[in-house]
């Protein structure tokens, strides 16, 4: 049983504060992803949980016990590093068994547990090799094996897939997911890649500039972003976001072009209010080439010129010109579109978002 709790956690380097008193409850056996752009404090937070960074203020509890002053070795955690951090002077087997050797376990037990972990990760044929003789993906698996062997309460991952190529990344991602299903430990996973965060985790923590922006399930953060930042960060291709002014049932953009106010927001706005309008590429589509989820009332159709297209095979990203910018729309069952061609587009406004233009907070509630 190892829930992890952060209370008012602060990290300062000298006078420079990088993590500003964050609170987070990670449940036992939960897979949680810390995600955000570089410099948002996610790695620092993870390193504080690991015990590799001192905690400037606040409390970290693992399994209900404060661990602020415990060294890393006493926290019963494992960590997989971005750089793998394998010991180059030891074989794969020695790398994986190192923690047990340090703990003073017997040769037989070490061998058995290493063999068990190696079997899970298909590393059995490589146990006698040195890390330098392995490929990137194999090294990453050894790093995971080293973490498994300890049988820790909490697994920590620090951008473990960043050094792998795209194909391997998908592969190892699946292995991490399987691993979680199998070992049933609490896992905290740091990444800047929102796809990894979405695919792997039970809940996502989106961080920015040392604050937590939103905590929620992948569906939550995708469908109900609390802030403009989350809306723009989660989702690929990103949400179309643009500033507009409320005027007589319309949202008027800078160029004078307008969209009707989505019905769900009508009662919450007043004339002259400045807002940021957001809509996902999936919710703008050439008419007949998408899925409309909302009411007919919230379906808005307009003809707009095509700026450029990016065919992906099963779908095409159509960049359309609106308000002097390029908005992205997603065309299912694609047909060929020419640059400059006028195309009739459907806006599914029931899935649109409005944010306060100053604070960036959602206007949904």
């Amino acid at each position, binding site marked *: 049983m190892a829930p992890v709790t952060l209370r008012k956690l602060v990290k300062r380097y000298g006078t420079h504060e990088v993590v500003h008193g964050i609170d987070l409850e990670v449940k036992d056996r939960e897979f949680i992803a810390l995600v955000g752009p570089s410099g948002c404090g996610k790695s620092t937070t993870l390193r504080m949980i*690991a015990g590799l960074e001192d905690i400037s203020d606040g409390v970290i509890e693992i399994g209900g016990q404060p661990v602020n002053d415990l*060294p890393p*070795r006493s926290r019963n955690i494992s*960590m997989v*590093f971005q*750089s793998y*951090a394998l*010991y*180059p002077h030891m074989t794969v087997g020695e790398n994986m068994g190192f923690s047990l050797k340090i703990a003073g376990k017997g040769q037989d037990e070490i061998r058995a547990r290493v063999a068990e972990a190696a079997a899970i990760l298909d590393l059995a044929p490589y146990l006698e090799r*040195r890390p330098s003789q392995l490929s990137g993906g194999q090294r990453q698996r050894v790093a995971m094996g080293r973490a498994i062997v300890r049988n820790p309460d909490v697994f920590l991952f620090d951008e473990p897939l960043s050094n792998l190529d795209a194909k391997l990344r998908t592969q190892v991602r699946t292995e991490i997911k399987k691993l979680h299903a199998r070992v049933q430990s609490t896992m905290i996973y740091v990444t800047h890649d929102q796809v990894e965060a979405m695919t792997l985790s039970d809940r996502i923590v989106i961080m920015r500039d040392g604050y937590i922006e939103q905590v929620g399930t992948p569906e939550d953060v995708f469908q109900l972003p609390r802030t403009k930042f989350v809306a723009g960060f989660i989702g690929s291709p990103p949400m179309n976001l643009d500033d507009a002014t409320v005027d007589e049932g319309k949202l008027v953009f800078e160029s004078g072009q307008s969209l009707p106010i989505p019905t769900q927001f009508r009662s919450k706005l007043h004339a002259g209010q400045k807002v940021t309008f957001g809509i996902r590429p999936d919710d703008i589509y050439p008419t007949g080439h998408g899925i409309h989820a909302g009411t007919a009332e919230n379906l808005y159709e307009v003809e707009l010129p095509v700026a450029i297209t990016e065919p992906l095979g099963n779908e095409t990203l159509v960049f359309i010109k609106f308000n002097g910018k390029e908005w992205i729309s997603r065309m299912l069952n694609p047909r060929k579109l020419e640059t400059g061609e006028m195309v009739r587009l459907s806006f599914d406004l029931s899935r649109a978002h409005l944010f306060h233009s100053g604070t960036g907070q959602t206007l949904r509630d």
Partner: protein
Amino acid sequence: MDTNTLHRIKKRLLSVAHILGLFIAMLIICLPGLWIVLSSLRPTVEIMAKPAIWIPQDVSLDAYRAMFSGVGSGGIPVWNYFRNSLVISVTSTIIAVAIGMSGGYAFARYRFRAKSAIFLGFMLTRAVPGIALSLPLFMLFARTGIIDTHFAMILTYVALNVPFTIWLIDGFFRQVPKDLAEAAQIDGCTRWQAFWQVEFPLAGPGIASAGIFAFLTSWNEYALASQITRSINSKTLPVGLLDYTSEFTIDWRGMCALAVVMIVPALTLTFIIQKHLVGGLTFGAVKG
């Protein structure tokens, strides 16, 4: 002739020139050493002959026999000198490497006030010519009564070598990724264990080379030793060479023989340790 043949001939000629160049360079480097060995085996007449006699005519081991036959019968106390050299070099090397390891590690891993100033200070001490220190050292040691002792020599050589070992070992610790020590700590090591289990073995080749350099510096040093040592209590081999000079003559053959005796252990040690200086050991530690 087609261009292909032309290029092949050109390539062959270039590789011949390459080998020839290397041979000449090696000849220039090795000739003095070879000359010393040759000169230790032949009489002074032949050594001093003009024009030089390249092929030795009269080879004998007389010089070595005389050297080890003791004082009075043409020899010098070579065993004493050898012992002094060994004690002083080995002890000062061990101390210099130990300090170099601690210092190098501190410079590579920790942040502290005036770090670069201190580092620069160490480097500046290397800029002072050793001989300039011989007089102050002589006076200091004479006053404190430690002149002509092993202790004085060891102290001098440790001071001489420490900045260098710190600098060299610092560089090697920097190459050991910090992640490794952190991974070891998470794997259950204390800071101290992480150092000995992971960082030390990886910086090992660097520490060994720092050791070789420190040893060779101490083993070969002449200028300071000639001032600080007086008798067989502490005289080292390089200083012992002077025993072969007298008021009117220099026994070149004997001197060369002693030089060979000096070179052999240094060469052997370097040869043994250099096998352990396998570079690129950290390869594959991080990234792909």
